[in-house]
């Protein structure tokens, strides 16, 4: 997030797309409602009539998969009516002309045909957003570097730049994080290609161009936007100080590997690591033989669960470390019991980049141990000789190796209420608003991204419905935590696929029927919920319930497809079960 949660209530205009904050990040949802009470204009762009759509000034209910056309049309209207922030564009951005040329053909009438959204609504939305004093954009965070949905982000960033909304209060981009410490896991280097603070570990094509660009060799990479938004704010990275000057025949990643190798007392490999998709799905020849899974449940969360099960069964050895025996643990050879968040000290990083302390409130259950203690014991069995005696000691090592992000964040300072990275020195106040005076590369980059009709997994005669996924207020992730609450279970007992009453009637379904939902990859069963929150032709399920594992149906190959909800979608057939 470029701005803070606290600023939301004062926004002039808010665009919410591909995310349902009142269910998935409720307190942020409350703030958006507060902003509307305070007079903010609300634009919801979503195929579903999410709750916020009820209080929106405009609801752009576009056909799934056509969001880029819609965003380009908004840009078109803004430019055509001269509503853009010309001064900002001139002083802080480049390639406006490219964008202008690209969006020329995205007239409201043309895009109305693609998206199914009336041209007048598109015009109204564009005016509302551009004419407000400040405008913020809320959307679902695909993930980091190697992920889906980057194209929507580019199109949205264009809107934000056009209207001069990056780098000022009550504005900016709000990619919302679903889980409490996704930001932290990425910032800590739990990604194949980067170490802490997005320092590249090897020079694969992607990071290579990124770093070359930083050094001025290459420019204009559209993916740079998502990378920055994911956390790699390059103005920050530029400020990394190296112990030794980077020599000409040594790449940045070589230098970084050398720095970490020295600090850790081991030689780091520069062989590119596998992404989660590669670990399970692709490149059988590169498939892993042993898996160490900490606090995750990929059997339920990864697209095309069947492949994940097969891959796990096929492994030589699987270790699962968790607080519960979840679905994935069933495939483990060894299960290690971990302590919960209430039983240890440490830090989380929230969606606004704020590092915050958690504190041990009770002792671990039974013989369970904090994850860091378990990892340390393992490390020492490999002769690595670690001896951290507290979470704080580990954090201080992170700070030392990642000064451009966390240098100034001592536990003592964090105790007073958390700090937002970058916070480079002990007297640095942290950074509530990114890009305030300048952008990462000094200049904001307009990038062009064209609408392409859905290729992968579109609907056809056999699979006439589009299935998308969403979250429910009363549950979280795969319910390993919320499923243990009798109260929450009583509020939502089972999965109920949302389907429009008109479609249900066409299929001869009654409210209490169970349906079989079949995609090109498998089928699952679910109860239904007749509701006009979904338009005809679209159905929506959550991934909370193991009994209706919606990811069995999903296509892992849809990554560069821009999907309406920001979550994955696919074509399905629905029958009475």
């Amino acid at each position, binding site marked *: 997030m470029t701005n803070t949660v606290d600023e939301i209530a004062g926004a002039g205009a808010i665009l919410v797309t591909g995310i349902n904050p009142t269910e998935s990040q409720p307190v942020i949802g409350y703030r958006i409602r507060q902003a509307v009470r305070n007079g903010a204009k609300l634009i919801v762009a979503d195929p579903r009539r999410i709750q916020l759509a009820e209080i929106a000034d405009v609801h752009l209910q576009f056909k799934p998969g056509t969001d880029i056309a819609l965003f380009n049309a908004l840009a078109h209207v803004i430019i055509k009516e001269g509503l853009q922030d010309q001064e900002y564009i001139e002083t802080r951005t480049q390639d406006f002309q490219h964008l202008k040329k690209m969006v020329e053909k995205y007239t409201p009438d043309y895009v109305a045909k693609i998206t199914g959204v009336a041209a007048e609504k598109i015009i109204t939305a564009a005016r509302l957003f551009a004419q407000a004093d400040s405008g913020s954009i809320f959307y679902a965070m695909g993930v980091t570097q190697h992920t889906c949905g980057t194209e929507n982000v580019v199109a949205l960033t264009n809107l934000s730049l056009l209207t001069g909304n990056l780098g000022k209060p009550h504005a900016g981009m709000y990619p919302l994080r679903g889980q409490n410490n996704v930001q932290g896991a990425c910032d800590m280097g739990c990604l194949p290609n980067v170490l802490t603070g997005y320092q590249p570990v090897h020079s694969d094509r992607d990071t290579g161009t990124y770093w070359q660009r930083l050094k001025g060799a290459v420019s204009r990479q559209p993916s740079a936007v998502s990378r920055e938004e994911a956390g790699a704010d390059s103005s920050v990275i530029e400020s990394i100080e190296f112990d030794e000057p980077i020599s000409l025949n040594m790449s940045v990643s070589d230098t970084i590997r050398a720095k970490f190798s020295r600090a850790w007392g081991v030689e780091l490999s520069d062989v590119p690591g596998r992404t989660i998709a590669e670990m399970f799905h692709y490149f059988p020849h590169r498939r892993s033989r042993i898996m160490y899974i900490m606090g995750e449940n990929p059997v339920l969360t990864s697209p095309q669960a069947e492949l994940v099960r097969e891959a796990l069964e096929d492994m030589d050895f699987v270790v699962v470390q*968790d607080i*519960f025996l979840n679905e994935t643990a069933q495939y483990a050879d060894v299960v290690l019991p971990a302590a919960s968040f209430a039983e240890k000290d440490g830090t989380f990083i929230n969606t606004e980049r704020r590092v915050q302390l958690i504190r041990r409130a009770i002792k671990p259950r039974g013989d369970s141990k904090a994850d860091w203690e378990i990892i340390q014991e393992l490390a020492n069995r490999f002769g690595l000789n670690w001896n951290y005696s507290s979470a704080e000691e580990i954090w201080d090592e992170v700070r030392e190796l990642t000064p451009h992000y966390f240098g100034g964040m001592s536990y003592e300072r964090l105790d007073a209420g958390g700090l937002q990275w970058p916070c480079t020195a002990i007297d640095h106040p942290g950074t509530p608003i990114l890009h305030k005076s300048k952008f990462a590369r000094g200049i904001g980059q307009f990038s062009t991204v064209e609408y392409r009709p859905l290729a992968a997994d579109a609907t056809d005669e056999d699979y006439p419905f589009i299935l998308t996924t969403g979250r429910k207020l*009363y549950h979280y992730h795969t319910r390993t935590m919320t499923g243990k609450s009798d109260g929450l279970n009583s509020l939502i007992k089972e999965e109920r696929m949302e389907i429009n009453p008109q479609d249900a009637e066409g299929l001869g379904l009654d409210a209490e029927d169970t349906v079989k939902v079949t995609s090109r990859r498998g089928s699952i069963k679910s109860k239904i919920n007749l509701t006009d929150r979904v338009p005809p032709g679209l159905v929506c399920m959550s991934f909370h319930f193991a009994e209706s594992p919606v990811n069995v149906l999903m296509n892992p190959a849809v990554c560069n497809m821009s999907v309406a909800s920001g979550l994955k979608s696919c074509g399905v057939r629905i029958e009475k079960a």
Partner: protein
Amino acid sequence: MDKVVLKLDDLEVMANKEDTILQAALDHGIYIPHLCYHPDLKPFGGCRLCVVEIEGRGLTISCKAPVEEGIAVRTEGPEIDKMRRVAAELLIVNHYSECLQCARNTDCKLQDIAAYIGIEEGRLQRLKRTARDLPLDDSNPFFIRDPNKCVLCGICVRTCEEINGVGAIDFAFRGLDTRISTLKDKPIVESRCESCGECVVRCPVGALVPQNMRKPEREVKSICPYCGTGCGIYLGIRGDKIVSARGDRDSVVNKGQLCVKGRFSYDFVNHPDRLTTPLIKRNGVFVEATWDEALDLVTAKFKEAQEKYGPEALAGLSSARVTNEENYLFQKLLRSLGTNSIDCCARL
């Protein structure tokens, strides 16, 4: 911020220009009885308990009256007392009190008011409503609504509207029948209510209380373990169990606000299904093991596979739910063992 100086019972105080007389008084440690005022909400002016006298102008409702330069305010006096007494007795008449059994006992605004105004015990006994003739609504698994104790301060209604924008409840019916109700008077669980509990936190009396409430013996500051908003919380602990949670009002992120998960959903921590010992799968079933057995086996298997296939055979998935320190060590371990194949399930 602009300041003004005024007199409160002969005490000269400085207040923010935007403040009401009640706010200024409370800020300076001067108690004026009040029931429908809440610092988070717009003033309502319903209970009339906060009545004061501005010299030369007469009686006024202090929660709605802005401070002004030079005014002199009396918070006590025969007329004020009379008016308060009438208002308070009316509330008590309609309040079903069984204070000792009430979850709000010792933390109740009505008790404070009765004590301050000094309503005599015998009269109180005669006055108070003795029957609980309106049905309780315990349909929500997390809190109970008891209309027999409701003092119609409207704080819950305004909270639901102003704080979280849900608008699940409102005043309904007229006169003596006035009650707080959901649309069509349905049980709260069938309304738009999102179970955030914000109204429960603010109800000044025992009309909205958590289900199975147990007071914590101590509190520990932490962060909600659910979504990426990262709301600040205080976990309430009793023995080695979490019995409550409340929002951290000092957190710049949530300012005390929480959703249903952050406020009510900590059962998982003490759940009997928690893993409490390492497990090793033998012949397809998990058997309990010691840490040494489990970790030795893991070490041996990792080494074996890496010797056979090379270091790249090892891959790790880390978690969006464990701490930074743990994520850091996780990738440090895998990278120290020679593989960069580390990813996190950030996708969902």
